[in-house]
């Protein structure tokens, strides 16, 4: 069993805006291409050109159809990666200490040297956010692009996770939730940011912004004329005023 820090100096994480996510999978694929040559073992693909292609991804988008009580059915695109929980069950369940939560920034990581690929952490994670890489035999998960966010070899503006940098719709935001004035804290306050499955008691750092209410603005125009002659007379008056 592995311990969690009592508190972390920063709480780095993501805000994901479900109102603007169009489900394009840009974050999924850019994450894959950055991280397959990034921190730790590559994200391998099995049978990539065959009958059952499957590989390791640290971030996936699920699309759901929802039928509200009234109105049309809706489609929600739901990107999901590690939420870097404050009470992370994947860490406490780890028998080797490979899974750990960093004191300095709250990022949950896997020490691949200590990981024996037992998969307990994936079972413990209620979000399904960890994937065992079949080629390397170690557990892979979102690192919040730890090799980007502090990287002096990258322009400062780009020191954000790859998924945030690439998101075309601007639906992903990165910042420090420990700072109430940070961009992410303000977004959460303004838009009613939510925990995913709070009943699990994991206290996720990442937050989701809910979709806004949808539907028509009910209104009706006042006719100025019922038939063309009336309109033309109205137009003559209107043009006279121009």
């Amino acid at each position: 069993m592995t311990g969690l820090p009592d508190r972390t100096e920063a709480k780095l994480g993501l805000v994901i805006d479900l109102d603007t996510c169009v489900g394009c999978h840009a974050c999924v694929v850019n994450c894959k291409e950055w991280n397959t040559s990034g921190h730790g073992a590559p994200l391998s693909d099995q049978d990539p050109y065959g009958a059952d292609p499957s590989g390791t991804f640290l971030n996936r988008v699920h699309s759901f159809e929802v039928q509200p009580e009234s109105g049309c059915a809706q489609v929600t695109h739901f990107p999901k990666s590690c939420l870097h929980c404050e009470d992370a069950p994947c860490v406490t369940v780890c028998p080797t200490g490979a899974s750990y939560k960093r004191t300095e920034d709250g990022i949950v990581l896997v020490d691949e040297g200590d990981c024996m690929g037992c998969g307990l952490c994936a079972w413990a994670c209620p979000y399904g956010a960890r994937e065992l890489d079949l080629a390397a035999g170690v557990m892979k998960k979102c690192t919040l692009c730890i090799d980007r966010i502090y990287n002096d070899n990258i322009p400062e503006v780009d020191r954000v996770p790859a998924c945030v940098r690439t998101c075309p719709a601007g639906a992903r935001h990165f910042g420090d939730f420990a700072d109430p004035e940070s961009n992410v804290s303000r977004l959460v306050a303004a838009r009613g940011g939510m925990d995913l499955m709070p009943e699990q008691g994991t206290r996720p750092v990442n937050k989701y912004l809910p979709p806004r209410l949808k539907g028509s603005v009910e209104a009706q125009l006042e006719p100025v004329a019922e038939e063309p002659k009336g309109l033309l007379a109205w137009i003559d008056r209107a043009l006279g005023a121009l």
Partner: protein
Amino acid sequence: MSDQRAAARPSPKVSDEIRQTTCYMCACRCGINVHLDGGKVRYIEGNRDHPVNRGVLCAKGSAGIMQHYSPARLRAPLKRVGPRGSGQFEEIGWDEALSIAAGWLAPLRETAPEKLAFFTGRDQSQSFTGWWAQAFGTPNYAAHGGFCSVNMAAAGIYTMGGAFWEFGQPDWERTKLCMIFGVAEDHDSNPIKIGLGQLKARGGRVIGVNPVRTGYNAIADDWVGITPGTDGLFILSLIHELLCAGKVDLDYLCRYTNAGFLVHDGDGAGRGLFLRGDDGKPLVIDRATGKPAPYDAPGVKPALTQTLRQAGVSYRPVFQLLAETYMDAQYAPEAVAGRCGIPAARIRSIAAELARVAFDEEIVLNRPWTDWKGERHQTMIGRPVSFHAMRGISAHSNGFQTARALHVLQIVLGSVETPGGFRFKPPYPKPPEAHPRPHAGATPGQPLDGPHLGYPLGPEHLLLDPQGQPKRIDKAFSWENPLSAHGLMHMVIANAHAGDPYRIDTLFLYMANMAWNSSMNTAQVIDMLTDTDESGEYVIPRIIYSDAYSSEMVAYADLILPDTTYLERHDCISLLDRPICEADAAADAIRWPVVEPDRDVKGFQSALIELGVRLGLPGFVDAKGDAVYEDYADYIVNHQRRPGVGPLAGWRGDGTGAGRGAPNPEQLQRYIDNGGFWISHIPEEAQFFKPWNAAYQGWAVERGIFDAPQPYVFNLWLEPLARFQRAAEGHGDRQPPDHLRDRIKRCFTPLPSWYPPFEGETVDLADFPLHAITQRPMHMYHSWGSQNAWLRQITNVNKLFVPGDIWEAQGFAEGDWAYLTSHHGRIKVPVARMDAVNGQTLWTWNAIGKKRGAWALSENAPEATDGFLLNHLIAELLPPKGDGLRWANSDPITGQAAWFDLRVRIERATTRGPSEPRLPAQKSPVGQGPDRLTYGDDFT
């Protein structure tokens, strides 16, 4: 155990070098930073400085590594050694390949150049490929716009001198309400995502009109699940509501449109045409004098309501006719609601919302500007409602008029080229008159008499021989589809096979999967490609094809010219073609070989130059017969289309030339140094009202976009259509065949009208009660994307989505399969339930299905076993009507393929897959991809 914990603040090296070029994972043309490590591509990200994507990159672009290193890449030129379709080839060298091609083509050029049909698919170099075809002398050239979205392009150009696609954009910074019609993933992919994100962040609203609620329509604040093919009716009903409420921008209509033009309202040859002065200029009634005056004379304010009687004929302003037409009760919300599948109250609400935002939330920019008549304006008034539309409305047989209806809606709201509305990107605005007319004058051994494609203004511009027969193999610019501005690539194989209007010798295709997802009627097209005559020769004798990958089409060609990947090639994304401009800037871009090919392949354009040299084509060889251009890069720098104007606008002459200037040998390096693109911003006072803004017109001339100012007004009334109607009534020398007269009279209305899609009118709707359409997924582009190792893990089977009521009525359960039947064929497909869809519409993802053996996928890949194409159900021809004729399944005005007119019925299948039809496998000329990837291993 070893401790491999990350450092507190890890700062690893990212790559050896970043090279900046232009993406080609779809048609969006984003700027990319390609990170190279040890000579291999390590990471691709968006270029933050690039005007198109401003740093972001979609899933396709991010999967570029897997496309670049795809096992399906062709490795060398191929000569067919087995029967067509078998996939049996022998690798040959380039010299032999080009000798074979030149050996086939040279005799054709000397005797009958029209026997070469050269058509391109995913072409971003049409100004070059068209120039080659013109030099060869065949009239049979076009790109693929005819089966893509020509209705959208042509309706935009004819109505307002610019279209949607990527040629214009909502004023994303200022718009408050954006309404999208028939938009799934398409051209302008990332800019739309960026724009919708910005709009929503500002609290603006999005209305999505689409039978299917995915992607952009999923995040729309209001979704209108319209019945396919009825968008035009819905739009005209919105116009009805706006007119009845007087919510139209009268000042805008008077100044910038032909609303005041006087239309001949009598009988005879002149009906529907404008009253013109002696100089040929259309006349309006000046409100100040009450007398006719040229529309463009300074100070003239056109009347919109007065009728002029002259020589016994009534001339009425366009606006009067427009108001009479659309205020008619046939366009009232109640009258259209049932057919559109939209309650009348919602139509009213949407009209009211458009009017409220356009007029009550008017934008005023304090930017003085001067109009084309010399009048100074102190402000720019904006109507912050914007629209975008794509193939959902375009791919119908009523698509041209529907797209025109949408433009008329934009125009009556005063929201085109005004702040907050829709804005053109250079080289647009450009009215139809400023485009060329089409040409098909072929002479053996000579170049064609002019550019192939253009914008006819009347029957006199049709391409017909003295017997009235079409001059082109695709019958473009004939009475069957007079305004076919992009040609009709989808008719080429069928016509060539039928020898109608004549036989050809060589079919030459570039990057067009015509043996699969880019053809209607796929299985029969395959039969046409492999059909032989009595002597055992192929009916289409020779096929040359260029592609970078082992696509389905490769197997049906006799000679393959292997193209490079997009990271290995030179390209120019040119102002002569389809540039990367923004509403505020002219811009163009290049691709350059950021990695060198490791195979015996050549950029297609370079191969075409070599072929042009071997054929001795004018422009390709000098007087001594030597090559003018060494390769495409040389052409890009040194070709001049007009003196001082070439493929790239940036850094011309001594390096200071912008748009104009002599060729600069340093030009490509300057592009590379600048991140792969060039941009020139439009001065502030010239940024809006471009068709009428003197400062814009002057700036565009300076930049070489055109050679003289060309102000114009928008065509609410489209006079060329009236000319075709008059011909159909028997007026004029050039007469349509009798069987087309009624259709031309009915469909070519000079004001946009709506008629039901043809297939639905032709089949028994009791037999085929449902609609079936496709949507393009956001993470794939045509068939190129679905071979990609990473992308195919997101989607490798396309199920047919079935609305809940139909699902339950049919007793479907998860995992079921169904037979889907049209008048033309029957396919077997996997089904899934979906409720966020129009209740009469079945749909699936586009171009996921693959033929076994193609794309280096295994034969049991889900794309081949379970994936499917709707194409098998769609014919190029409508079912027989009993009149002895076969009618094209196309828009009667432009010839656009009417993919989305498809009508079907569905029945539960008692067995599961594989999908049907199950065509024989083709042999892969490149083998099959590996069974495991650990990309990134090399870099650790």
